[in-house]
């Protein structure tokens, strides 16, 4: 049953990074869009995230609940030593969620919209940045439970160049996912080529920040290269991620938009696999060489089995509904698209 629980932990993290990430990315893309193109970008982005955004928080909550029920030591270690970045990430989540809702549900559309929008942009950038930073801290051996001063215990446990690089990389991935997902929401050629341009720009950012991650890992003595490339699985994951990049470019060129989405999601999963498989099932690596493992540091057997069943039961209830929800809205948007621009159909 422990593998079921770990599987769900993985699933919820992946879905949070992909769906939630696209969600955050929408704000990042808007933030870095020229004023001229902003209204258009905003409409397209909004169309692509509107129906399911409320559900996206849940992937994170599920991951957190799995951690504190099934892996309490992991949860308490994270929340003790990474208290500060977690709070910063929370601020991002709160500000973003509420700003988005308010932007959408405020009955009067006036100058307040600009305020909500600004908050929405910056929190969209901050949240994935800190998410990346926290993820980096779990494997960079920077958490030192034996330290005796505030700085080493609670600040340098997460503040280092590698963390910053991973944070930037995560934000870039979010922006990339958002622009890719938005491709299918465009309603005419002009919009489509605008978004393709954006996808290519964000792709460049992903590559640059990715290189930055390896570089900072190298200068901070984190054996990232070894982790990723020492075993066939890592090499294969990296290979697939790179191949997908080429395929995505090709598919965008011939305007096959559905595979582009699938490939981008697949790419992100491959990146996650490449970064974590080597030290799996160890989820937190401490500076003193010890670690917390998803197979050893676990709750009592009855708890794990109850948690596993709760998760299985939950997904039986949720997933069909969620897919039906997504399906209904994409169908509805397709109809909208057809009625809106019958003279310039998308290939």
């Amino acid at each position, binding site marked *: 049953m422990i593998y079921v629980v770990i599987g769900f932990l993985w699933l919820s993290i992946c879905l949070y990074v992909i769906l939630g990430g696209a969600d955050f990315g929408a704000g990042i893309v808007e933030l870095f869009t020229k004023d001229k193109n902003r209204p258009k970008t905003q409409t397209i982005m909004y169309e692509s995230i509107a129906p399911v955004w*409320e559900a996206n928080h849940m992937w994170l*909550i599920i991951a957190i609940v799995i951690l504190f029920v099934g892996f309490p030591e992991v949860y308490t270690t994270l929340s003790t030593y990474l208290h500060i970045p977690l709070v910063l990430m929370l601020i991002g989540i709160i500000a973003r969620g509420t700003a988005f809702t308010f932007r959408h549900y405020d*009955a009067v559309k006036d100058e307040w919209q600009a305020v909500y929008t600004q908050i929405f942009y910056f929190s969209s950038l901050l949240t994935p940045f800190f998410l990346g930073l926290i993820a980096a801290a779990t494997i960079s051996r920077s958490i030192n439970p034996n330290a005796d001063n505030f700085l080493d215990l609670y600040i340098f446990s997460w503040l280092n160049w590698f963390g910053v690089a991973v944070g930037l990389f995560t934000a870039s991935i979010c922006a990339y996912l958002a622009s890719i997902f938005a491709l299918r929401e465009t309603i005419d050629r002009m919009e489509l080529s605008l978004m393709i341009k954006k996808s290519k720009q964000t792709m460049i950012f992903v590559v640059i920040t990715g290189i930055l991650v390896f570089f900072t890992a190298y200068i901070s003595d984190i054996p990232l290269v070894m982790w990723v490339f020492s075993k066939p699985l890592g090499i294969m994951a990296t290979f697939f991620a790179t191949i997908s990049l080429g395929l995505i470019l090709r598919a965008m060129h011939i305007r096959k938009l559905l595979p582009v989405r699938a490939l981008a999601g697949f790419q992100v999963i491959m990146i996650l696999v490449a970064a974590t498989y080597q030290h799996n099932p160890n989820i937190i690596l401490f500076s003193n060489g010890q670690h917390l493992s998803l197979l050893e540091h676990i709750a009592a057997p009855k708890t794990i089995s109850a948690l596993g069943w709760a998760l299985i039961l939950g997904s039986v209830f949720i997933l069909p509904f969620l897919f039906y929800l997504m399906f209904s809205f994409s169908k509805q948007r397709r109809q909208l698209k057809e009625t809106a621009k019958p003279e310039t159909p998308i290939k």
Partner: protein
Amino acid sequence: MDDFLAARAQMAMSLGFHIIFSCVGMVMPFLMAFAHWKYLKTKNEVYKGLTKAWSKGVAILFATGAVSGTMLSFELGLLWPSFMKHAGPIFGMPFSLEGTAFFIEAIAIGFFLYGWDRFNKWFHWFCGFLVGVSGLASGILVVAANAWMNSPAGFDYVNGQYLNIDPIKAMFNDAWFSQALHMTVAAFCATGFAVAGVHAYLILKKKNVEFHTKAFRIAAGFALIGAFGAPLTGDTAAKSVAERQPIKLAAMEAHFETEKGAAFIIGGIPDEEKGEVKYAIKIPKVLSFLVSNDFNHEVKGLNDFPRDEWPPVAVVHYAFQTMIFFGVVMIIIGTIYLYSLFFKKEWLDRRWLLKTFLIAMPFGYIALEAGWTVTEVGRQPWIIYGIMRTVDAVTPMPGIQYSFYFFTAVFFSLSLVIAFLLTRQIKMVPRLYDPNDPQFNPNAKNKKS
């Protein structure tokens, strides 16, 4: 401010706000579904407008409840890591189920808000109703987890070790039913009064009178159920407390000496040092009767317990008195309303009745927060009653006061913005929601003219 106090203050404040957001988010969908049902039955467009107006309230509160809930799931660990390390695997079960309930709620809201004229009308109605049902389920599950802190179960505590953990038994602990029942009814009461108060105000202002009268009647109906349900379920809760946490009951009543035929103490100023209550009204034997249905039952007093296990007596006592006071006021208002519904229909439109409801707008939430204070402060100094002290659970990280200031600022601004947004929704009623208003034009670009 010392870190322990700051951590407690932050937790209390976060929960204090979250309770309001989530209770409104839990009950509003039922108001909405009721108005929707009326619309489907009567085809009266006013009910449709009302449903839409309330659904916006649901969406706003749902979103804020979701973020404050996300914050809490982190705060538990950020502030109380030692507690979560041991308690997480034992009392976490309701949280993992709550994830499902919450997810269903989110999906149902998605269907409901975007589903007008797109789905079968009864399926659409059912989605709205499902929002309420799953919200209610979430609420009950979270209260069950809280109840475990008051009534730990599902493990054996041997030499500081938590053995034989059974999360299902932990979930169905002795307190979950009475606590969840009372909380649910109180949520209906509080939200009913709050919503009724808002609409009463708008009727008094003579704005969209028909629209707001329909809204007021529905909300007042819910308030009525809550007002009469609260004392009944409260009685069950009090009996359960008397059995499980006699010291909490003693603190609620500022009852110092153990005695048979204990008096029910109303008001007064408890003096912990001297062990007495000044200026209180004492009704002989009633406390004994309330907790056991026997006028001569023995009720344990605070003096029977070690001093270092007392909760802050004055806080718990005042909170309890506040809850009772507002509860009684709401029963009186409810009785008047019920009487006018059946015997004096003409009273229903009288200004004094509406004014009463306007004044009573916050009463439900005051009572709810007071009751929550009784439950939580009354549990102190324990975080897991009888097992782990709150002071042993707090995070080792210093400087929590800054975190407290910060979160306080966040919650206050969040509440201000919600109030602001809801006011703006209300201002737009003539144009967006009331079909009988000359300004009604929901499809126009609603820019400020």
